């Protein structure tokens, strides 16, 4: 994807990197950042877990062996068993599917809706901008988890509704981000040029403005996946997300809270899984920001 604005900058600075495209350059920058790579590896690890869950995990994650309940970690049950006698390791592996699915799809949903609203607001300005921006302001006035709880309360508790709620509460973040990016891009020469040769608005929006506003969205999106996973776990913990017997990490935490003292492994491992995934996405997101934001370049 061509990036005329940056190419012009780079021509001026006679940097040796000019031979690389912006995406390859970003990858090069990203690789240099060890911490970001650690984050990337953590994320990759959980993605692989999720994809290959049926081959890695034991069969029958919902099979209840009540004779084996609340066993500490052992050779048979690497991370112990929960209060139904289910293997915690297998449930965490399957839980990765749920959490990553919620994280990715909620963020993709909010990016799509947020981008459309943001571009419209930024490009057309005036009263359209006022309406959309005030709408975002109103949504941001609510604490996000409270808004999510309210949405789920209306839709009814289920994983899918939790996903929708998380997507909705993240829309204004992306909308505002894109809007501000569009505001600066639309003054650039190449947009004026495109207008000058009579290009239609739709084409300008989607083949020039949108691609050039994507970098911050990718960074923000990666970080938002972390938040979305946390929010899904929080809703699960409150009983508003995934319903039993699905092995959602937040739900696993909530189910185990009575055993905090007698069987701490039932809480520690799902908690660690949440923490590691969120950490992975955050480290990766920070790395991406460093790599993709020209202002951050040293």
């Amino acid at each position: 994807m061509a990036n005329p604005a940056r190419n012009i900058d780079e021509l001026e600075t006679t940097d040796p990197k000019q031979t690389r495209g912006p995406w390859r350059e970003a990858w090069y920058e990203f690789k240099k950042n060890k911490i970001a790579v650690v984050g990337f590896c953590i994320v990759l690890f959980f993605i692989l877990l999720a994809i290959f869950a049926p081959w890695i995990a034991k069969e029958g994650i919902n099979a209840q062996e009540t004779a084996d309940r609340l066993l500490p970690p052992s050779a048979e049950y690497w991370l112990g068993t929960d209060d139904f006698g289910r293997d915690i390791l297998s449930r965490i592996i399957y839980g990765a599917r749920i959490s990553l699915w919620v994280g990715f799809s909620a963020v993709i949903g909010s990016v799509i809706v947020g981008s459309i609203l943001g571009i419209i607001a930024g490009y057309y300005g005036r009263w359209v901008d006022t309406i959309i921006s005030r709408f975002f302001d109103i949504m941001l006035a609510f604490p996000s988890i409270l808004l999510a709880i309210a949405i789920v309360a209306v839709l009814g508790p289920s994983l899918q509704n939790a996903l929708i709620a998380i997507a909705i509460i993240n829309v204004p973040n992306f909308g505002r981000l894109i809007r501000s990016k569009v505001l600066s891009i639309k003054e650039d020469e190449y947009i004026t040029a495109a207008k000058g040769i009579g290009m239609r608005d739709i084409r300008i929006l989607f083949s020039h403005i949108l691609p050039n506003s994507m970098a911050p969205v990718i960074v923000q999106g990666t970080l938002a996946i972390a938040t979305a996973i946390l929010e899904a776990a929080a809703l699960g913990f409150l009983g508003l997300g995934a319903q039993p017997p699905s092995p959602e990490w937040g739900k696993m935490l909530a189910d185990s809270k009575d055993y905090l003292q007698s069987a701490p492994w039932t809480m520690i491992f799902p908690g660690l899984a949440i923490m590691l995934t969120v950490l992975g996405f955050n480290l990766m997101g920070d790395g991406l920001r460093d790599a993709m934001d020209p202002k951050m370049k040293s």
Partner: protein
Amino acid sequence: MKLKNTKSLLGMLLLFVALMLAACSGGDDDNASTDANDSDGGDDVSSDEDSTGGILVFARGGDSTSLDPSRTTEGETFKVTKNIYESIVTFEEGGTEIVPKLAHDWEISEDSLTYTFFLEEGVTFHDGTDFNADAVVKNFERWAAGDADTFPYYNSMFGGFEGDEGHVIESVKAEDDYTVVFKLKRPQAPFLKNLAMDMFSIASPTAIEKYGDDDFERNPVGTGPFKFVEWKPNDSITIERYDDYWVDGLPKMDKVVFRSIPDNSARLNALLAGEVDLADGINPSDAAAIQDNADLQLIERPSMNVGYLGLTVTREPFDNKLVRQAMNHAIDKQSIIDTFFAGYATPAVNPMPPSIEGYNDEIEGYEYDPEKAKELLEEAGYGDGFEMELWAMPVPRPYMPDGQKVAELMQKDLADVGITAEIVSHEWATYLDLASKGEADAFLLGWTGDNGDPDNFLYVLLDEDNIGSNNYTYYKNDKMHDLFIEAQTVTDQSKRNELYKEAQVIINEEAPWVPLAHSTPLLGAVEGLSGLVPHPTGSDLLSNVEVDRE
């Protein structure tokens, strides 16, 4: 930039390790801070103790809804009012036999229509006025003139209000200052037991007049061992020793503070931390931890409850008797009890516990048999199974420590016979409301008896008269209804027992419920606490309780 990142990674790792350590050693930390608290608290109390009996802090799961017991059916209220008010007669310690209280003696006429009570003399209300026959009459006149909104339990126990066809009490008259005569329209077998219930405790007529109905429930005045001091909603209720209490030497404590701590684990932690002396609603899974702790004791409340899965008979497919029987065969009660009652329960067969007279022990109930369940489903035309909603309560109850988990076990049992159950939960008040409207396919619920009479279980929970209130299954059976009404009027106990036994056979065959368990509710207390005899109704008289803090 590289340096900065390395530093932040290190910082993060350190933080991570610190968190892990904190998590692992959490228990010790708690104990350490606890000890400090404990010695502080201990000092305070012991300085009080030198002159008096000290303060008892009783932690429980919820706040009271009212302090006028006649205005509610909710158990948390009675835990407090039991100690502020007294009734004419009462239940024995730890059981449901009738013993004297404000009446030291009584006579019942041959036809069981006239009850004459001889009242204690020299009893005073906390506001200084005398307790006498007039006070009893005024209390009953107040209730009889009410309606189901103001006095929700009066009509179910006495057949209605003044002027209603079914109202059992014809008149309540004071014969002299200390003699009260109740005249009934027809015999009522559990009449004395009804009078002994906490909701029909005698309040000071002067105080009721002074405050009016609505303010009185926040300014309770009775004759009990403790008088009301303060009510902080959702936090605590404080009562203190009534110095002119008519029984010498009682109560032993100076003050009792009822604290509401809704979360079971938090309540246990408060007990472990020494912040409270007595806690009810102990999770069965925590029983072992209390027993192993030398500073604490575990107290078992005699069981008088039932936890069940109700099947709404007006909804498909539970309108089919075979499906209901199949549900009974499909669910493994013993595994539920072993797993989530930690063994502190017995499997239920009938809708009432075996400790109650009239229990039919010839009924064997439905054994756990998935194959049989499948056959019955086949026969009913549901060979391929069906989908249903399985409602689970969101809060721990004495008869059901963890509804959600129990439902999850059932979900798997039902899946084994081809039934797909989706677990549904609502906020507690909504849950009860929707279930009472018959909107649940199948729902977990339970009941703690209030007077130890079979009528208080069978009639209240399964008769057509109580559809829409306590009969959530909408089950209706004319033959059974006749048995219940007959049993209410017959006063010969063995005849009554026969009638209730017959009704239980019908219930077993028709299977509107899957009876699950009769649980043993657990309390935890500090080691030095003595004199507490937990009562099966769930509300305890604390006048004999002492706490010895070394």
